[in-house]
């Protein structure tokens, strides 16, 4: 009975399948961070930095791709 359906984490990730890949990467990364820090009432600074790191990484990838397509 239990194994036939998706876990709630997978159900939530499936909601974002239609998003562009960059946003999907940000959302899934941030959800994982939030899950790991769910026992804290306020988000730890370390976790805030991790969110900034994901944004920085995906933004950099996007700019690199944009630059590469201009060079082509």
């Amino acid at each position, binding site marked *: *009975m*239990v*194994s036939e*359906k*998706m*876990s*709630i*984490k997978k*159900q*939530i990730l499936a*909601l*974002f399948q239609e*998003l562009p890949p*960059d*946003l999907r990467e*940000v*959302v899934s990364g*941030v*959800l*994982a961070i*939030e*899950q*790991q*820090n*769910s*026992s804290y009432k306020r*988000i730890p600074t370390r*976790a*805030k930095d991790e*969110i*900034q790191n994901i*944004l*920085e990484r*995906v*933004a*950099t990838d*996007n*700019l690199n791709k944009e630059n590469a397509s201009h060079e082509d």
Partner: protein
Amino acid sequence: MKIERIELKNFRQYFGEQQFKFSTDPNRNVTIIHGVNGAGKTSLFIALNWCLYGEGVDNIGQLVSKEAMARANPNSDITAEVNILFSHDGVRYTAIRQLSCRKQEDGSIRELSNEKDFKLYRHKEAGKNEIIDNSIGIINTILPSNARTYFFFDGEKIDNFSRPESSREVQEAIFQVLNLEVLTRAKAHLNDAAQDTRTELKKIVSGELRELLDDETRFANEENDIHEDQQRLKDEIARIEQHIEQVSSELRNLEEAQSLQKVHDELSKQIRQSEQTYNHTIGKIQSIANQSYLWMANDAIQKASNLLEAKRQRGEIPSNIRQQFVNDLLERQICICGRPFSEHDNAWSHLSNLLGESIPSKLEDDLITTSGQLSNLLERIPVERQQLNGEMKYMMQLLDDIKRAFNQRDDVERQLSGSSQEKIAKLSQSRKAYEDDLFKMKVKYQLNEQRLVDITKQRKELEKKIESAKKNGYRQRLLVEKKRLAQESSDAINDMYEQFAEQKRLEVEEQTRRIFGLLAWKGDHFSDVRLSEDYKLEVFDRYGMQARPELSAGERQVLSLSFISAMAYVAQNEAPIVMDTPFGRLSSQHRASITANLPELASQLILFVTDEELRDQALQNLVDRIGSEYRLNFDKDTSCTTIEEVKRG
């Protein structure tokens, strides 16, 4: 998560090293631990919570075995330890938590602090274990700390969800078990990240981009303020509704007010139902209206459809089999009428010309498809217009119904307020005042919602302008891109959140109804279980009346258990259900119905029971599902517990 084994070392009354093995067999998924009161069931329950989450203990000093302390020499160390082996998603883990103390010369005990008192290992192949750095994070990913209380619980203390004022607890449980809290936190923290990036960006830009960012900040701040206001209004609305229900309940109990209050209740029910249908109808109208651009294009669609039809009739758009068909005729050199022909005669030339005129097959297919789609659109337009007219008329009728019911209810309220009995008059007047406040708050809430829609639209337009504004250098471009990613990710979560939360509420409601029907021994007496939009868990009897105020303590426990099992089912997180004294307050009928059904509702069921609460039919129901069983023997001479494995037949 499936718990495979717990090892205890000098933990409370478990002196020395002792262990329990829990059943992980899906067909025999029940583990029973028997013990009289004080034998150590609750200590085992504490061991589970303390080891995995470091919680559940008020006085940490009480964790170390007193027998171990008594036997230790002065200045020697004693360690209490709980070690749990469990599996999750095909990976096995061992969690270890320790507490070390030193026995002083005077016999007292001093706790030795140890920052690394919790360790989590991931089992790898060939018996090797790998220590996990982010151990608390991983445990929270497997079974979040705030959700575990809904899986590891004291059976006698779980009727929280079935009390009338429990909607906050019910909502909190759903938020935590179904990860809705993770979504709301992710949304808020992405908004914060967008704001931080905007602030950083403002330091290095000027001119148009700076102005646009200032405007965006203003919108973001207003949006935040409104969200906070909405939460405050929601809480206030729930509080006022509770007051109104209390006053109504008092009036129901006053004999002289009963008949008028009954009419008041009936009219309130009508208003509620009509308002729900009205909201649903508005949703339908909006959905049809979203397609209304088609109506504007009616003439153009008709024109295009006529054009394609004319071409088809002239044979300029042949069927998609034509090209292949003509090729076949040319190859076989036999006409469709059966007459043979040869290369370069009239029939051959005619067919070859037809082939030359025919358009490429892909385009041919597209034209046929387009023609079909245009006809379909033309057919839909009058149908949708008719639907919209129908829904609009229905909406107006509902508005009239609501208005009429409100007027009738006001009449009833006036009669109650003017009652010669002071108590009735006062209660009715206070309810009227609450209802006026409620109305104002609901209007304010709706206005805020509309403002949020407008702000989001304006903010998105600004976002586009910021993206296309001139940027100097890589850092500015990078920050704009970071801000876009944060904002759009937050918006994406926001867009799906309400619908997802509502879907999960309905699923939990459906499962609670189903499970309560299985577990409540007088299931036929109860006709329905509902989880309202404001998270009130309600039971209705066969007369359609709210039955929750009359539920017995046992029935309230069964309702709460049904709700917990429903959440576990909807979440599908395969967490074990661990219950301390699960049946203490239940009648034999409830014990029998729960033991007959509960093993099917959980992936793993661990029960800490006294012999009195698990016997007769209840025990018989479980026998075939028991995979592991222990008895706790408390030695009065040493105050220590030893574990004895029970082997059945």
